[in-house]
């Protein structure tokens, strides 16, 4: 493995250095900001959190907190771009070999192309896992700091924790396979980006429907939804207990239904993180399988 890592680092030096610098800057920014926000919370704990007691100084403290909080939001949005790491590392792995002609010699030498690809991709996969795990943990801490120590539940759900890592791995796998199919680095980078957006959107739609089936019905109104919950839809509960979409209550007499919301509670967040993680793993597995099947049939030119 050490040999593969050393070879992969040299073959993709430019990508590794560029990604390393960008990630380091992002990581340091997140860590510094988390520390700064935690210090502000520590100085005036009564002003933060759902169960805060409040106090006369709190409006000024909350105002001061708003600046770092906005920066934190921007940084967390940047986490959405981190699958790009998987694409930048993954797309050239096979595409460059084919484009430059080295695949002809390497594949002729290799006893098994599959083993070659696993050896060649493993360092990139490890790099993606380690880098994005650190970022996922840092983003998790930053989210908790923004909430004054309250459990984040579904807040910034897709921008922290293991999902960040698994989305990066899916990007890596997808871009390796697209690079193998196209045999050109630049088109592979572009197509992999488009394909990843589409795949994630498709997964998002599927997960959205799945979540609805797991949602609880809470009466519409102030205090009905706990912080960290996610509201999936506004519905109406009819007198017989059936639930209908809100737009189907037009024409129904007042009082024959009550407004309600479909909600996933914060306590369900970890279960949904696991389910989304499993979907990403399964998708990555399916793409990998298709890629490995395709590899044995791919011409090296």
């Amino acid at each position, binding site marked *: 493995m050490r040999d593969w890592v050393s070879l992969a680092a*040299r073959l993709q030096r430019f990508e590794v250095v560029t990604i390393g610098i960008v990630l380091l800057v992002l990581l340091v920014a997140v860590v510094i900001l988390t520390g700064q926000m935690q210090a502000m919370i520590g100085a005036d704990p009564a002003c933060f959190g759902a169960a805060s007691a409040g106090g006369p100084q709190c409006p000024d403290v909350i105002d001061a907190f708003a600046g770092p909080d906005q920066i934190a939001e921007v940084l967390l949005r940047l986490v959405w771009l981190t699958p790009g790491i998987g694409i930048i590392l993954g797309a050239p792995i096979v595409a460059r070999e084919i484009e430059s*002609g080295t695949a*002809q*010699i390497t594949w002729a*030498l290799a006893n*098994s192309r599959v083993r070659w690809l696993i050896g060649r991709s493993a360092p990139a996969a490890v790099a993606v896992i380690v880098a994005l795990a650190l970022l996922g943990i840092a983003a998790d801490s930053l989210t908790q700091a923004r909430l004054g120590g309250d459990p984040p539940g579904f807040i910034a759900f897709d921008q922290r924790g293991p999902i960040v890592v698994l989305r990066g791995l899916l990007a890596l796998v997808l871009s390796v396979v697209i690079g193998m199919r196209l045999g050109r680095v630049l088109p592979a980078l572009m197509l992999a980006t488009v394909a990843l957006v589409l795949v994630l959107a498709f997964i998002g739609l599927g997960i959205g429907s799945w979540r609805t089936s797991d949602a609880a019905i809470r009466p519409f109104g102030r205090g009905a939804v706990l912080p960290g919950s996610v509201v999936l839809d506004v519905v109406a509960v009819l007198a017989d207990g059936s639930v209908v979409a809100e737009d189907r209550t037009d024409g129904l007499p007042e009082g024959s239904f009550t407004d309600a919301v479909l909600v996933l509670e914060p306590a369900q967040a970890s279960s949904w993180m696991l389910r989304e993680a499993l979907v990403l793993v399964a998708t990555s597995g399916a793409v990998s399988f298709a890629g490995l099947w395709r590899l044995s049939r791919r011409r090296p030119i």
Partner: protein
Amino acid sequence: MIVRDETHPALRATGLGKRYGRDRWALRDIDLSVPSGGITALVGPNAAGKSTLIRTWMGFERPSVGSARVDGVDPARQPGRLSGLVGYVPQSPALYPELRVGDHLRLAALVRPGFDTPRALARLGSVGIEPQQSARALSGGQRAQVALTLALASGARILLLDEPLADLDPLARREFLRALRQAVVGDAMTVLLSSHVVSDIIEACDALIVLGVGRVLLASPIRDALAGHLVVRGDATTSGLVASFLGPDGEELALHRRTTDHVDARPATLEEVVLGYLAFGRQAQRDA
């Protein structure tokens, strides 16, 4: 000494055809056997199908019709069994510019268990290439030598070399062929060496395959090819004619099979045999 086993073909093609798109045939009706042992020259003009044929035996192309076999193995369907058998040197072999020569050997050892690194190092040393040299700084000839070294040290019994001499200067060509000859004698290897320049390779080869417009025009041991053909100046009318072609001074020459009884006939050189069959192929294509 090189022993050629005519009964046990190292490479075989049966009714082989390769089509790109709807109707562009790169190879057609190829029936061919390359016996084990020795160096066979695969000669033909550009776009004759030499690279396609070699890549089909490498498993890099799938036949559109017919079959290809390498020591009995179907390269398209049994790539796992093929990999231990065959070594390959492509035309203008590409190395990794980011790596040193020694790194290529490390990579080869990673993907090919049993790769003979000491042998590769010794061979590179013998041609004046250091493991510390950057692949980016190597000349075309040195890159070809590294590629040949990788193929030789891979333990393959069959080497398929696709115009490896194309980028080499005359001295480098000679060194390359000498190294190849030594390997064939020492390791009882079978080598198929393609080129479109006959004079480059003919002195190193034992057998000759002439490929033209996707078809085999001649497949024969070199001694038989020489013994079986005569050249007649100008006269293209007698029996046994293969084809007419232009000689080095622009004179018209006619290649005949040895059945001719022409009084002015003289033994053909190998280059004349090849030129005659290439002219025959071109004529046949025109007639078709």
